């Protein structure tokens, strides 16, 4: 039976399988200490046990829910702010230096301030995830709108299209690849922001569980949870990649 995997995919899959097999052999043979790393098969069985046992089901759900909220919020708010700043070039010019240096600000340092404002709950963590992601979305939306060819706007005028029709049928489809890239980045940054905040600062969530297992020398739990995070992020990225490919294929650009 054909799996329908292209050569590049086959090579990628083979490379992953070879690396995992080598790691498995190295760990089982004792070349790598168990205190440093456990065999991938143990990570997998540990992950199955965690998910099956449902011991930290609530923590996983809270983290994934937080990431979803941060990503959704940053995509919606980033999109709207991007559109507004694109429409108001003067405000954009004055904000440009701030946006350019935004990612040099260690957003985690604001966590205590968010606790003061919102209390000891998940809101500060979600806000950190949101703040990590929102500017990536915003700048990509502005880039996309900047790059809508002037001739397409003129074409809309020649077709006597009104402003709303021009926006939805010309401008947004034209800027769609950039907006999509912004959304992809927003999702990735939401993962980084939420998991990072949980890991460093919080006392709940998947990130906190990984940090706790690390401090407790519980390598099986730690690596199993890391595997869970990697699998979830890979699955989300895989879905987004497939979606993007389908969009670009429709434009004959893949």
């Amino acid at each position, binding site marked *: 039976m054909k799996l329908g995997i292209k050569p590049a995919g086959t090579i990628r899959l083979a490379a992953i399988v070879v690396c995992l097999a080598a790691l498995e052999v190295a760990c089982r043979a004792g070349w790598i200490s168990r205190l440093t790393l456990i065999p991938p098969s143990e990570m997998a069985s540990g992950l199955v046990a965690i998910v099956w046992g449902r011991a930290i089901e609530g923590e996983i759900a809270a983290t994934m829910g937080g990431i979803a909220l941060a990503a959704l919020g940053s995509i919606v708010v980033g999109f709207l702010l991007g559109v507004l700043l694109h429409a108001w070039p003067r405000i954009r010019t004055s904000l440009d230096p701030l946006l350019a240096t935004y990612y040099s600000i260690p957003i985690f340092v604001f966590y205590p301030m968010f606790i003061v404002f919102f209390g000891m709950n998940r809101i500060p963590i979600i806000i950190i995830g949101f703040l990590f992601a929102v500017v990536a979305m915003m700048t990509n939306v502005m880039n996309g709108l900047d790059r809508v060819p002037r001739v397409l706007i*003129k074409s809309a005028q020649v077709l006597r299209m009104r402003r709303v029709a021009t926006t939805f049928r010309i401008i947004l489809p*034209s800027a769609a690849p950039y907006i999509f890239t912004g959304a992809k980045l927003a999702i990735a940054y939401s993962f980084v922001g939420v998991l990072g905040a949980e890991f460093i600062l919080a006392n709940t969530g998947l990130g906190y569980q990984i940090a706790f297992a690390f401090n407790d020398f519980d390598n099986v739990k730690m690596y199993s949870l890391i595997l869970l995070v990697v699998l979830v992020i890979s699955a989300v990225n895989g879905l987004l990649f497939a979606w993007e490919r389908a969009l670009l294929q429709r434009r004959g650009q893949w």
Partner: protein
Amino acid sequence: MATKGSNEHPVMEVRTEAQVALRNVTRYFDAVDGRRLHALGPLSLELRKGEFFSVVGPSGCGKSTLLEVVAGLSRATEGAVLFEGKRVAGEVPEGIGVVFQEDASFPWLSVRDNIAFGLRERGAAAREIARRVDDALALVGLRDFAGAYPAQLSGGMRQRVCIARTLVLEPRLILLDEPFGALDQQTRLLMGDEVLALWRATGATVLLITHSLDEATLLSDRVGVMSARPGRFLDIIETGWPRERDSRLASEAAFGAITSQLWRLLREESKKSMGAGAPARVTA
């Protein structure tokens, strides 16, 4: 053969026999440094219904500005543009189609959907859209590429998609802004033949902006020669070609004579244009 173009008619909004009438049209732009840049005019012109009129002139003389003013994409600072007796002001009137130099195909739509786009915007019935798009696809020779996307086509084919998207709306005035500017010489000649065939088939009036003297000579009933900025008509040359014509005209003696006449008029203007340096940055 030559008829002088007038630049100083009084501004009037009157019914005219001409399909398009420009009366003392002038266009200024505000330069970024605060100066006022005189880009065009004053110029006056009348286009007869069903004629093929080309405009040639040195770079930066305001040819594209003229087209935008005629289309209603840009307002004349002074003077008036009339299309079928009605003043063009602020928006593109119904009945005008424009093909731009740049690729204006929509990359997210197939060739068929690109061509159908304007009809759908106007709320045409699905059956009517299918019929007119099929006709347009056949007219521009893209029937086999109906399902392709612009990125899968050559530059010439994409330009044909844009021409078809314009023609399908059956405009009475077609404005072509250097539509073959990005194409090689052979393709330009063949595209010229296609445009002539389409012009005959549709009966529309065509205003072509071009850098190419050969193209203007070959395609046009009349050629307007513009001065360096601010662009005014130096002369309007009547070619005298029959309506049934194609690129084989390029080997006739009269073709060379008209092209030479255009170049004689343009040579000094082009020198002036080259000596003028880069135009100031402007705000529309």
